[in-house]
């Protein structure tokens, strides 16, 4: 299978910075994958996201080296407006991505850019509104709704365009825990029902981990760790590298370090409960045998 995104020896340097934001990055993302990108602030995550959507180098000045291929074509070879039909992008600040006066107009804007007919637009609108639960907000101005609702609108606006790839740049960073959960619920539904390739930059690892197939850790413009999600979180040096996985994962790393546990680290809460139950059961058997 051909990768949907292929990044080859890619570096990007902004004009007013000393060091490159990205430095010799090599990546392959396959169709249908859900990839999580993490890393500290200034690691180059947003630059990477903008590069996959063509906003870099299209909208920014800087020095580019290497190549970014989307659907087998270098991003700079795409005519204006075409790449964005294949790669949708949700930004971290929901307010910054609104282009229309009502939620409905916001959702429809991208569909009109695709040149869809009114019937097709209606169909997609109904689908995305149901998926993201926005029925009650359609007539409201997008800048008058809550932060969580704004981000759902932004996500829905991109989803409605049905891009093959969706890049989400910290879409929940400005949201409260409940709104964050709702965004992840939508993404979970999407993962179950759709065939999108999703690349998500996110700090909320406890929400991100159960969804991803692969994780990438960026630091100072370099890919420092890159593995499937399960293997990624087995690495005992994660905390030293500045990655703070969910407390469940940290707990199992701690007990493994103390020699109380030897198997694979569970990466979700459900897995952890299951493993813990087994540990307790074996402890009970052990105690029974010893008559304790």
């Amino acid at each position: 299978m051909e990768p949907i995104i292929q990044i080859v020896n890619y570096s990007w340097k902004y004009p007013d910075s000393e060091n490159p934001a990205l430095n010799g990055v090599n990546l392959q993302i396959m169709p249908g994958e859900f990839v999580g990108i993490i890393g500290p602030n200034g690691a180059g995550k947003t630059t990477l996201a903008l590069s996959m959507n063509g906003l870099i180098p299209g909208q920014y000045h800087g020095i580019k080296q290497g190549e970014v291929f989307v659907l087998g074509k270098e991003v700079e070879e795409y005519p204006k407006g075409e790449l964005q039909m294949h790669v949708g992008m949700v930004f971290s600040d929901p307010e910054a991505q609104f282009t229309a006066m009502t939620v409905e107009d916001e959702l429809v804007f991208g569909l009109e850019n695709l040149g869809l007919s009114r019937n097709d637009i209606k169909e997609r609108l109904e689908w995305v509104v149901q998926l993201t639960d926005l029925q009650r907000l359609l007539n409201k101005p997008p800048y008058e709704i809550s932060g969580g609702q704004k981000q759902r609108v932004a996500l829905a606006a991109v989803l409605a365009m049905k891009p093959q790839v969706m890049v989400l740049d910290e879409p929940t960073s400005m949201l409260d825990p409940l709104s964050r959960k709702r965004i992840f619920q939508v993404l979970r539904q999407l993962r179950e029902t759709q065939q999108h390739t999703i690349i998500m930059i996110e700090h909320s690892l406890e929400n991100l981990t159960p969804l991803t197939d692969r994780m990438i850790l960026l630091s100072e413009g370099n890919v420092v760790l890159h593995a499937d999600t399960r293997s990624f979180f087995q690495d005992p040096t994660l905390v030293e590298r500045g990655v703070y996985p969910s407390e469940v994962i940290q707990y199992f790393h701690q007990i493994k370090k103390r020699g109380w546990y030897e198997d694979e680290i569970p990466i979700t809460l459900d897995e952890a409960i299951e493993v813990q139950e087994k540990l307790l059961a074996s402890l009970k058997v052990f105690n029974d045998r010893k008559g304790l």
Partner: protein
Amino acid sequence: MNKTLLGYVPKESPIYEVHPFVKLFFLLVVSLFPLFVAAPEWNFGLLVFLLLLMFLCRIDMRTLRIYVPVAISMGSIILLSYTVLGGRHAEFQVVANVFGFPIYWERLRDALVVYFRILPMIATMVFFLSTSRERDVIVAMRSIKMPFVVTYVFAMALRSAGMVLEDFHIVRQAEQARGFDTTGKSLAYKIRKYVMYMIPLFALSLRRAEEFTNALVARGYSFTGKAAKIKRADYVLTHYSYKIHDYILILLITAAFGVLLYLSLGLGFFELDKSQFIQWLHQILS
């Protein structure tokens, strides 16, 4: 309540039965009426008609009070410019002297004419903005096949006005939180220190512009190239349709304008020498 550009109008208002284009047509045509009418009493009549229309459309009439100081200060400026600052004219009739400045009847009359022309024009605009949402303006413009770029830029201008105001509040609060506050200071001080607000506001606007451009590009919009040539479905128009009463209203507005033109240009019906009010005022001042 529905939020409009200038306030709130109840959902039960009959104005929502009217197609947005009819409202725009009303604004464009009726605001021309005073240009063809010199007699102040007729323009005053139009003003009363517009106020009645606002009342019927269930606009909160109390909100109109904010325009009273505007109307008074505008009237004062016009009066001063035409009379005290209107220059000396030997051929005009002097009706009074104020601190050595002659007040001419002709200049006073012209000031009244101009003032009563402007008032209904402003009232028409207030009526339109009080009964229309941003979306109505866009729908009205698109329904007469105005280019998308024009309607879009107009919509964004409307939106950015609100955003700049919002950013201004943020900047002011941030500066107040760090001890910079012009409340209670003299006007001269406020003007001098205004730059403290303007610089961050300008920087914020630049950032907003960049974010907005990114958002447009990310949604596949382009002002040039192949993507710009795609025929847009104008989905928003599917929610609006012309009804019989819309056509009747368009016809009535057009007919009213036609009659006005005939009476004004054909018969000179609204000229000053036929104005009862002007004659009455002239008699009093003479």
